[in-house]
């Protein structure tokens, strides 16, 4: 594989060769696929440049950094809100904290775990697990009188 042999300085020639190899290998794989197996109905041949499972290209590194900045800001806000205990109603604090946690969870899941650019099947299964957990354990806590 040219990856291991290419000099670590990342010379452009080596990278170009790398790119060519990958292109050829990708084309060969697609040709093999076509010849030996019928493409099942409903299967999506990924558009050129996309990997299987992707619907749109992944976000760029710049976006990832922006999301990280937002995550830090929200975390700082969360901590600040928690210090307001005593000054504002507990219920309000709980509400704000939960909303901010959901925002952070959503940002990591959508952007870093690529749920917003991948095929929906991953999101559907993940959400299924989360929703099942929330509902089931909520009922358990309800039955054990946590909310009274």
């Amino acid at each position, binding site marked *: 594989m040219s990856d291991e042999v290419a000099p670590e300085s990342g010379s452009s020639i080596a990278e170009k060769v790398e790119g060519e190899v990958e292109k050829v290998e990708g084309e060969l794989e697609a040709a093999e696929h076509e010849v030996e197996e019928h493409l099942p109905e409903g299967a999506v041949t990924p558009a050129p440049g996309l990997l299987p*499972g992707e619907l749109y290209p992944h976000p760029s590194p710049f976006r990832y950094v922006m999301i990280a900045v937002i995550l830090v800001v929200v975390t700082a806000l969360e901590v600040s809100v928690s210090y307001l205990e005593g000054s504002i109603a507990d219920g309000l604090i709980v509400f704000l904290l939960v909303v901010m*946690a959901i925002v952070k969870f959503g940002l990591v899941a959508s952007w870093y775990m690529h749920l917003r650019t991948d095929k929906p099947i991953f999101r559907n299964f993940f959400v299924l697990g989360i929703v099942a957990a929330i509902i089931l354990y909520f009922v358990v806590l309800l039955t054990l009188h946590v909310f009274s």
Partner: protein
Amino acid sequence: MAQEIAARPAATPAARGEDAHGGVGVTNTKLGMWLFLSSDCLFFGAFISAFLLYRGRDQAGPKPSDVFDIPFTSATSFILLMSSLTMVLALAAIQRGDHRRVRIWLLATALFGATFIGGQIFEFTEFSREGLKLDTNLFGSSFFVLTGLHGAHVTAGIVWLLSLWGLSLQGLLPTENAEKVEVAGLYWHFVDVVWIVIFTLVYLMPT
């Protein structure tokens, strides 16, 4: 290069029975990882529920406000968040074939993760010194088991990441294996996301 391609067995992934690109157009491995993460939600949910159930029920022993050092835990939480950034940058790097960067970001992620664990260990020993142990009261029980299991997940992740880093060093993590980094990333982000929930519900909630 031509030798490489010719040497590959003339079998598509589907015929090999692994990582089929047929079906619904996703790889088996990634689908498998998402299903596993889905099930892990229920695992952590049980311990989070036990913690929420027992919050405020202790008659004796330290309470959260007695031991929690929110600034410290905020710092470690920040580090874990940043590790998610470095993780996804590692993935972006391998997808564009930049293997030097892959190693940098993978190592960074593992180091941030290790720092987080170091912070946890420090925190736990502090709490223990202050009188909060596993068997002290319900707070101790539910807190240490929940965060301990989370820490075990992080540790397993660190070992995984260092293994990938080692593979890359030996030239055994080529661009076409980007998926290995991707699924490790999914696991890592999940562990981070669980911490987001824990940090909010365990540390920040008003008592």
